[in-house]
């Protein structure tokens, strides 16, 4: 055995070897340690299963305030009888001499038929040798006496009297060494410390777990040849909706889905040509009167696609791989699966030969790098891409396929009015969804509650 012992533990073990069964009190005397050191040492040894602690409880009794007075001066009724020993006395004299104990002592004496009362004169009838309780009083005196050593009949009367008897429950410990402790050789662990003992917890400073996932995703995109663009979270409806071919009376544009900024409209929303061509595309295809004032309404972006499309409209690249990553907003009820504000990743590939199969290939590569290999693609619908697909990934824990990213090729109705002439592959999705898989969370709100217990301890699932 190569355990390390504290000096306190060594002293206690040594003492117990000399004297096998001890109380904390006796250990205190034999080791010269402080009571608190003894207490800790015993606890350490007990946890290491080196000491056996037998606890027993016992009740001790001692005298209370009135008990001590009676022990010194006699019980009230004894003092009454003593005063009457030499003949009858007047009631008023007795009252004067006995003071506060006059009432109780008279009561007891009458009840037990020790006295006679006639014509204001009190006299003894019978005088008992020993009154109930006197034996017990003498026995206790100024000490604490185990209750079991006292005649319970004699004690019971005193227990009923106020402040006569105090009862205490005493815990006594008997400490002895276990078999293994007997063979310990202290010299094995001369200067060591207790390397097995519990230590206080320290908390690591770290990036937010969600941010870790965001950073990881950003890095994957960069290694796949994508460049990051940033954009505003407040956007005109023109870029958030109109430029993306969402008609102005589309349900997604309603107040109950989208956050509009109160009383704020954009003065400049795009170049005159952009505005004209976008509105023409709407009028021609959706057949309604396009209203520029609707396009001026400021919203909190509902996707990062507005940032991407604006970038493409401004730069018109023939070939590009870009991505944007950031917060987006939906006016939904907050629940375990919905937040009003969450992070979205969005990537596009521009190139004359960009195809749907390429788009699927990039997806597959991306998921592989975040550790998701079981995927499939399903057709779906988005207003601004055609064809459109969604990725389904298999969640082992739930035992079912769940939707992850949406993707597609930007519609000509979106790209042509903005002067983008090459196919644009686009895809995007919520980052929190991926992070939930990584951190094995089933409540998305956890990411923004900043609960220190979770932030300090969250670990990724592999």
């Amino acid at each position, binding site marked *: 055995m190569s355990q390390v012992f504290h000096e306190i533990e060594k002293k206690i073990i040594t003492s117990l070897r000399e004297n096998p069964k001890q109380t904390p009190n006796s250990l205190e005397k034999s080791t010269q340690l402080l009571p608190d050191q003894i207490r800790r040492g015993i606890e350490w040894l007990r946890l290491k299963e080196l000491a056996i602690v037998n606890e027993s409880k016992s009740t001790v009794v001692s005298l209370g305030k009135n008990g001590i007075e009676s022990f010194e001066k006699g019980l009230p009724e004894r003092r009454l009888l003593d005063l009457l020993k030499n003949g009858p006395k007047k009631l008023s004299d007795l009252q004067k001499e006995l003071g506060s104990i006059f009432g109780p002592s008279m009561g007891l004496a009458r009840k037990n038929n020790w006295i006679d009362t006639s014509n204001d004169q009190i006299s003894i009838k019978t005088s008992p040798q020993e009154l109930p309780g006197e034996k017990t009083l003498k026995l206790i005196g100024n000490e604490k006496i185990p209750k079991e050593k006292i005649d319970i009949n004699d004690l019971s009367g005193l227990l009923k009297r106020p402040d006569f008897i105090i009862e205490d429950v005493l815990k006594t410990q008997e400490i002895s060494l276990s078999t293994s402790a007997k063979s310990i050789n202290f010299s094995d662990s001369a200067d060591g410390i207790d390397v097995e003992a519990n230590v206080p917890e320290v908390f690591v*400073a770290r990036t937010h777990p969600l941010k870790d996932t965001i950073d990881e995703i950003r890095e994957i995109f960069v290694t796949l040849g994508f460049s*990051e663009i940033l954009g505003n979270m407040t956007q005109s409806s023109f870029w958030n909706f109109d430029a993306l071919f969402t008609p102005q009376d589309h349900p997604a544009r309603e107040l109950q889905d989208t956050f509009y900024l109160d009383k704020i409209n954009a003065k400049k929303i795009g170049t005159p040509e952009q505005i004209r061509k976008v509105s023409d595309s709407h009028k021609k295809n959706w057949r309604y009167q396009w209203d520029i004032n609707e396009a001026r309404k400021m919203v909190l972006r509902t996707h990062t696609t507005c940032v991407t499309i604006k970038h493409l409209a401004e730069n018109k690249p023939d070939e590009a791989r870009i991505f944007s990553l950031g917060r987006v907003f939906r006016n939904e009820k907050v629940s375990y699966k919905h937040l009003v*504000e969450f992070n979205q990743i969005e990537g596009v590939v521009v190139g004359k030969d960009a195809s749907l199969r*390429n788009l699927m290939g990039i997806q597959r590569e991306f998921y592989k790098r975040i550790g998701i290999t079981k995927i499939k693609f399903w*057709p779906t619908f988005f207003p601004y891409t055609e064809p459109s697909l969604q990725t389904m990934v298999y969640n082992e824990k739930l035992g079912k396929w769940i939707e992850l990213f949406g993707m597609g090729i930007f519609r*000509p109705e979106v790209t042509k009015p903005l002067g983008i002439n090459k196919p644009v592959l686009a895809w995007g999705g919520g980052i929190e969804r991926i992070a939930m898989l990584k951190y094995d969370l089933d409540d998305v709100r956890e990411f923004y509650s900043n609960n220190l217990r979770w*932030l300090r301890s969250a670990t990724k699932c592999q």
Partner: protein
Amino acid sequence: MPVVELSYSRLQKLIGKVSKKQISDSLPFLGLDIESEDKDLVRIEYSPNRPDYSTDFGIALGLQGLLGEKIGTVKLKIKKSSKYEISVKSNVSKIRPFVTGIVAKNGKIDDKTIKQLMTMQEDLHFGIGRKRKKSSIGIHDLDKISFPLVYTTTNRNHKFIPLNSEKEITISEILTNTDVGKDYGSILGQSSQVPLILDDNKNTVSFPPIINAAVTTVTPKTKNLFVEVTGINKEDAEDMLSVVATILQSAGFSLESVKISGAKNSTPKLDSRKLIVSSSMINKTLGLNLTPSKIISCLKKSRLDASSKGKNIICIIPAYRFDIFGPMDLVEEVALGYGIQNLEPTLSPSQTIGITNPISLKLKSLDKTMIGLGYLEALNSSLTSKRVLYEMTNRDSKKILSVLDSKSQEHTILRDSILPGLLENLSRNIHESYPQKMFETGTIFLTGDPIAEKINFAGISAHKNSNFTEIKSVVQSALNIGFGIQIETKTSTNPTFENGHCASILLNNTQIGIIGKIDSKIIENYKIRVPVVGFEISLSESLLKN
């Protein structure tokens, strides 16, 4: 996305010889998500651009194609009839100018069919009808109506017995007392005249787009139907009618035409369209190399018709497929017919070099520095509440930026500062062990035209011995290591901080932030039991980009 409830056994009857498993396996590849299943019942989410999928009849048509049971276009067979006519009065032209219609005869209507038709009607009303504003449908029992009909206007005192009612009430009463009246009455505006369809006996057939008359109610006893669609746009009304006609034909009805005459209106044709697309464009977009005949067979599986002329594909699109705008939409139809599961993903070599945005890089390095200083990163929403942002922290709320109609009271205004959120975080963690040191970088929003979005950086330290010196050391070191700048602090006052323990953070004599001990009243507001020191700095573009 709208949801429709179907039964597998009914679908099997409609499709032909297919198993339940074939159906459930194929649904997703038609673009339909299975939301839930319970024995024979299946709930399906469909895209609002395919209103024909609002009924099992429409879904059966799609599945027939995908499973190869029946392919090619569903041709509408409309028997020309002169028995049914709606004449349109010019007085409706300013309110709801267009009406169109069709008659469907000899169909079997059971409760399930009625339920499917009602779902279709509701979904059409919501989607392409834009909550009945653009167009709306009425489906009636044909045999309770005497033709010809007239589409005209009436005043609000006009009386009839509306659907689900037993007594005659006025239009005004319908608009103020019934649910549909309250929900859709606003479409008609304030005008004293409202649209109305009357039959030859002057009986009210319908009060579009609000409610039909009770007398024409469709029941399981109904054999023949009359469908009318009214709207503010002719094409939209006919699009809607084409879906209804297709579904009713698929449900076993035979269709007969309704002649529309007068004021801009005409008898609906519901003709198919022709669209030409090159096979090379299809192949290039999909990344495939399909022969024209293979492309044609794919289109047929998507229930379109096609033929080839050289490298061009001439595609025939039935009227109800108005979701098809141009060639790109046909590419999707080819992909669906080909089967998405058969498309093998490929990776094209990238000619581009990826670059992280310099601002993201800078912020990431700042994160690392703060972590080195022992600070834990927090993330809070940019949308927050007046309580957290202003009231609790004693800040001036004059330049508040709020959003309209938020469903969550905790998320009503955009933050103009990060520190209040961090203090709120402390108050939620009062039972966790101290010291608690947190930081956050994030966007804040400032009023103006345009709205300014800035990146702020804030931190807090809370423990029983926290003090100004400690937090100044942190800020000083973080900015020095993170940005290579030396800051100064100058005595200042701020309602969030305690007097005498508050300073402006200066860079080259310009204030970039604030630092100090959080005011004890604010600490009390948040029920925090230890002193808190904190700072907030606005990171300028130039700082972030260098």
